[in-house]
């Protein structure tokens, strides 16, 4: 089972705590990117099995980055996260090819549960 994961989140405090938490739960965090471009670069170098992607990134939409990643590696599992709660967000996330949307704030068991149920 591929437990490599790339975290894409521009807010450092969130990225750090998610990284620590996933490591605690047996995941191999191969990188933490804070922009769409950085995420695509890390993705191409390290080929993680899973990506955790924030929708709102400073340089592009996380969903556009997700589409680019899936074009190159359709087997990759991408989970989106967002603080937006507007109607239609989840549909857009699924349309972009992501597996599911996590709405912030979420508990550790919600995130870990989602990642591991899908494995």
């Amino acid at each position, binding site marked *: 089972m591929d437990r490599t994961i790339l975290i894409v989140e521009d807010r450092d405090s969130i990225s750090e705590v998610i990284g620590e938490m996933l490591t605690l739960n047996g995941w191999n965090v191969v990188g933490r990117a804070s922009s769409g471009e950085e995420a695509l670069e890390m993705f191409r170098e390290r080929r993680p099995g899973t990506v955790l992607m924030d929708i709102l990134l400073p340089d592009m939409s996380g969903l556009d980055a997700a589409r680019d990643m899936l074009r190159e590696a359709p087997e990759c599992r991408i989970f989106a996260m967002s603080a937006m709660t*507007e109607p239609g967000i989840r549909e857009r996330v699924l349309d972009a090819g992501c597996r599911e949307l996590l709405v912030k704030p979420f508990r550790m068991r919600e995130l870990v549960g989602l990642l591991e149920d899908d494995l």
Partner: protein
Amino acid sequence: MDIKGEIRELKRILIEDRKEDDGSPEIPLYFFEVDADGNFTKVPSILERICGFSKDELYLLSLQNVVLVEDRARVQEALERVLEGERIVVAEIEIFSEKTGSHPVELIILPLKKNGSITGAWGAVKDIGSRKDMEMKLETASSIQKASMTFLRDYVSLMSREIRQPLTTILLTLEMMDSGFFGEMTAQQKEKIDQLMALTDRLKSILEEALSASKNIAEEIKLDRRMVSLRKVIRDVLREKQDLLKERNITVITNFPEGNINVPADRKTIVQVVSTLIDRSVEVSPRGGDILVELEKKGPFLQLSVADSGEGLSEEAVETLFDRIHIDRERESGHFKEGLNLYMAKRIIEKHGGRIWCESFPGLGSSMLFTLPIEKEEE
């Protein structure tokens, strides 16, 4: 001349024949009299107010003088026909206005008879200009209100998003502390961590409620009315709140009338109202307290009341309870959420044609009541 009869006839021409059924308040009539040349023999007070002439000045003028140039020919022709015995209604004309230059009115002119002969004319001036001003002001006020509600909705959405970000870090860090990631915790430390996590969850709920409420406020309430059993609504809401009631050890006593009374209502929004009232009663009642939910037929209405066993509210608090934002200095929790939810409840009930209010006695608890009109009753 039978003055009363003529006035009745005049009102009939104005009101019944014209079918002014738009709900606007009755527009007052200002009566006048003129001689055969149109000179005022009785001056309507409205002309002093709008034209800016004194009564003495107006008595030196004629009806044609106070009307704008472009409408004078119509008024002159109307006078001539009235002097021949016709009754004339002159639709919107403009009279001179000292402030704005012109002011729209409606003129109704009838023959003035003395000793069987027509000696002049009389009638009424109907001020439609003020109604138009008021309609415009109401429209402007309504647009401003809509814009500010939209702003509130968007602002709350943005604020909600911003607050969720640090809440994510706080919640996850607390969970990691709880799981011992930063070292073994004492029992007391674990308890504190649990409390903080519960509070963070509460913050998350408040955000969701505020967001939902602000969206509801900004949107117009649309009702899908069907025949709804309020008894069933209450039972469904209580069933949904079972865990909460159990946790607070609250007993709910219900008192329903014989037979099933259905009301035409939008079930979803009425469930929201009942849920709000029950949530509030649970929150203000002490642990182990009672809540009484009653349904009663009151004439053409069905009345629902939810009485709590709390401490009651002051008169001042009751007056502002359904305002959009109210500050309850007597309690520590639930201001924002409660304020918005009760405001929404009021909007919903009033949209249904009902009324919602609170009866409270400090020290004895409060009752939250609302009425809904009944259309048909089933045995």
